[in-house]
């Protein structure tokens, strides 16, 4: 029961975290095409939502994930090591997006870099690796 409850919270946090991570780069490039006053309002709103939704969801995912790993005795499995590396990479991408959002909000002349839309594809590639490892549990 405890394991299932933690797993539910883990999945809820994960869906929230991944959802905001996937949609934010698109919204940033969309905001860049808006008139300046609307752009700054949109970016500020996006940044605020990123702070109150995505960051707590990331911390929740990690906390519940570590709890699941401890309770289920998964940490000895090699696939989990590989998965943790990929989740660490996904967390780093979260940091990249967070820094870019702050810079876009604080610096009026700063425009989103070209690679920010491609970040979605990198996120999807990392997520694919994570899901394959969780489903097939190789090793």
């Amino acid at each position, binding site marked *: 029961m405890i394991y299932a409850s933690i797993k539910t919270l883990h999945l809820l946090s994960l869906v929230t975290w991944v959802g905001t991570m996937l949609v934010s780069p698109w919204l940033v490039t969309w905001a860049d095409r808006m008139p300046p006053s609307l752009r700054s309002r949109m970016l500020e709103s996006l940044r605020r939502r990123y*702070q109150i939704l995505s960051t707590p969801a*990331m*911390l929740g995912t*990690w*906390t519940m994930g*570590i*709890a699941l790993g*401890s309770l289920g005795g998964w940490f000895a499995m090699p696939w989990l090591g590989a998965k943790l590396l990929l989740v*660490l990479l996904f*967390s*780093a991408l*979260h*940091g*990249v*997006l*967070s*820094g*870019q959002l*702050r*810079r876009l909000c604080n610096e009026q002349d700063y425009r989103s870099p070209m690679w920010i839309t491609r970040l979605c594809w990198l996120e999807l590639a990392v997520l694919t690796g994570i899901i394959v490892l969780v489903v097939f549990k190789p090793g």
Partner: protein
Amino acid sequence: MMKADDIKPRIGARWRDEPIARLRLIGRIEGTTLIALLFIAVPLKHVFEQPALVSIVGPLHGLSFVAYLVATVDAVSGGGFTARETTRLVLVSLVPFGPFVNDRFLARRQCSEQYCA
């Protein structure tokens, strides 16, 4: 005249909005859990055969390490850090007492971005 080392911005000041304040706060937590793990929990497990503390401090350190890395990437992605400074920020998290030693550098960086007195 006030020297840069005399200036000590409050670590908890606006940590939600300021990436360097946040990095300093998380760095201290990460540094503390690493010291607790290496110098208290691990000796207790291997010398006195008491593994309970490792199973508590271990995950806490793991979580704070992830939070520190994310806060580092967040601060660097916001601009203003060189590649050398970024490497330094990452490496200090792996060394016991590293974040505490590095805190002076971060305090100076925090001061250069805001008024400190």
